[in-house]
């Protein structure tokens, strides 16, 4: 087990810079998810921690000890890969035994440890098979078993379950969470799936364009995103963004859009003051509703209703803004119907207009 600290970490591939000098700290036994779209630098960051990529600039410390020049095999880091990376020519047993054999553990001890981890991972009946015959769920469990068999100081997981089908994914997610709770490994989990990140991690590190956008506990990332990128990337269905004017009111601030005015809650006053005239407001689909009382009601024309059984997604046009809102399954407005839409200002978010292009990059 180890704590990890990164200082002004930079990764360059030739002229391309993938990671732009990031700083972070991960406590011993903490489970951190690195979340971001492809190309955001999350995998480069992980591979630098593993020692598979050279660190271009900056430092990484394990338990306060600088590991830049420590080779991958000497860092005691285990990793499980998206593609499982099982050695195809040898049996499952030998796959799991591989790290022990390269550490020259004696055969009796290898056998004991392999069988022990196989038991925990429900792999005992598969030990004599070659990786080729395994289902993807089994292959990933073998990958995890091989990673865990030597008791790593840091356990890295690179998109470990993105190849699994939905049902397997839920199973595996719980399994990984239980591993962490049982053994208290320092775990870093790279994913582009925000649901996985929020569900599993103690803290989520959201990355984009080689920079850390926010690093915080899941609740905070969800409810108090630091910028428009985080707000747009985290949350399903995606948050609604709309342009607004920011105006001073007696004793506070308000936003104006579609000719309506909404008084801002106090926590947004400072933000409003910084932003000045043009703002980018955001509200999650769960905090919009149809027909409920609120300080601001808008008339919206229903564009489409998606019935998802446990909830309905309604897309409504308010002027030229299209909002998505989550409604109770009993609420099924027809296309073209005019409905009252209310916004819960307690959950409203406000960003500078200049961040609008960051939002565009999520969709792309």
């Amino acid at each position, binding site marked *: 087990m180890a704590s990890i600290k990164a200082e002004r970490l930079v990764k360059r591939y030739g002229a391309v810079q993938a990671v732009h000098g990031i700083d972070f700290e991960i406590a011993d036994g903490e489970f951190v998810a690195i979340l971001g779209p492809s190309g955001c630098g999350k995998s480069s960051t992980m591979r630098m921690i593993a020692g598979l990529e050279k660190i271009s600039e900056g430092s990484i410390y394990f338990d306060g000890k600088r590991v830049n020049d420590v080779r*991958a095999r000497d860092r005691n880091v285990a990793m499980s*890969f998206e593609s499982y990376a099982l*050695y195809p020519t040898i049996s499952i047993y030998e796959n799991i035994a591989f790290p022990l054999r*390269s550490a020259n553990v004696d055969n009796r001890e290898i056998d004991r440890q392999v069988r022990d981890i196989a038991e925990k991972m429900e792999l005992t009946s598969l030990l004599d098979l070659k990786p080729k015959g395994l289902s993807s769920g089994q292959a990933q469990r073998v990958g995890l078993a091989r990673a865990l068999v030597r008791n790593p100081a840091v356990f890295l997981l690179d998109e470990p379950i993105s190849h699994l089908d939905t049902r397997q994914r839920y199973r595996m997610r719980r399994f990984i969470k239980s591993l962490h709770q049982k053994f208290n490994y320092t775990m870093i989990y790279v994913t582009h799936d925000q649901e996985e990140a929020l569900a599993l991690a103690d803290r989520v590190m959201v990355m984009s364009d080689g920079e850390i956008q926010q690093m915080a506990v899941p609740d905070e990332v969800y409810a108090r995103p630091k910028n428009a990128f985080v707000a747009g990337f985290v949350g399903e269905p995606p948050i609604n963004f709309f342009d607004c004017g920011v105006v001073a009111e007696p004793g506070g601030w308000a936003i104006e859009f579609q000719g309506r005015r909404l008084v801002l809650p106090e926590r947004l006053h400072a933000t409003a003051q910084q932003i000045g005239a043009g703002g980018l407001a955001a509200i999650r689909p769960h905090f919009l509703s149809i027909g409920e009382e609120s300080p601001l009601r808008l008339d919206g024309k229903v564009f489409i209703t998606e019935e998802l059984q446990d909830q309905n997604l309604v897309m409504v046009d308010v002027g030229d803004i299209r909002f998505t809102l989550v409604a109770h399954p009993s609420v099924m407005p027809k296309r073209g119907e005019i409905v009252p839409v209310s916004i819960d200002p307690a959950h409203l978010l406000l960003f500078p207009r200049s961040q609008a292009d960051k939002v565009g990059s999520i969709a792309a």
Partner: protein
Amino acid sequence: MLQRDSSFAREALRYGLIVLVLGFIVFPIAWMIITSFKPPEDVMVSPPRFLFTPTLENYVHAIYDKNFLFYIKNTLFISVTSTVIVIIAGSLAAYSFARYNVGDGHLLFFILSTKMFPAIAVILPYFLIFRDVGKTGVGRFLGIGLDQPGALIISYTVFNLPFAIWLLVSFFQDIPRELEHSARLDGLSRLQVLAKVVCPLAAPGIAVTGVFTLIFSWNEFLFAYILTRKVASTVTVGVESFFTLQGILWGPVAAAATISVLPMLVFVLAMQRYMVRGLTFGAVRG
């Protein structure tokens, strides 16, 4: 009825074509083997005789009078040595091209482009170089002068290496990087990763490349003919020596040719399993 006729016709056509193609391939080989057992008076008659009293006379002539096994020995030494060098150097080069993209693709293209000019274009400079190098102390020590095995080993290595690298690169590219990453984290050094993880996976590809290289070297004629006289001559040159002033000794030529085909035939049959695996390895994934 009509249906059956047309499907019968189609099957007939299919087998007809197979027989035709097989005929083209098998007939010359069969002809060579049959001729090698014919007594001299039956060799060049028209129409050809297929009923004759088989004799080993041609083999006796080739092996004892012409000392043909000497050429086999030379060829074996030269082509196996060259193949081993090609495989080792080629694998290392191909691995670095596949993994580190050395030279950004330009170097790989340059290496392959050396295959684009005909061998005969360089034969004269090769001749001159080996003649001069062979006179130096180092050249004599390494046996790389004219009519010495080293000259042919170097020539074959130079000429087979580009093709081998080109073939091997795709095999190495097909091996997932994650496997190497995983092995490095599991405690192996880079060289151990190459030996324990990469090579076993690339084995079918390396086998295929080795077989091709060996066959090319074994069958090569031009360099062997120009660069050797007696001491280092290979089988192809050996067969040519049967074209004497007194005429072409067709019977012994056939016997010698049969002898020189045999080792490769046995070798390829033994390697067939790997070759098919190696040849389809890239295709299936691509």
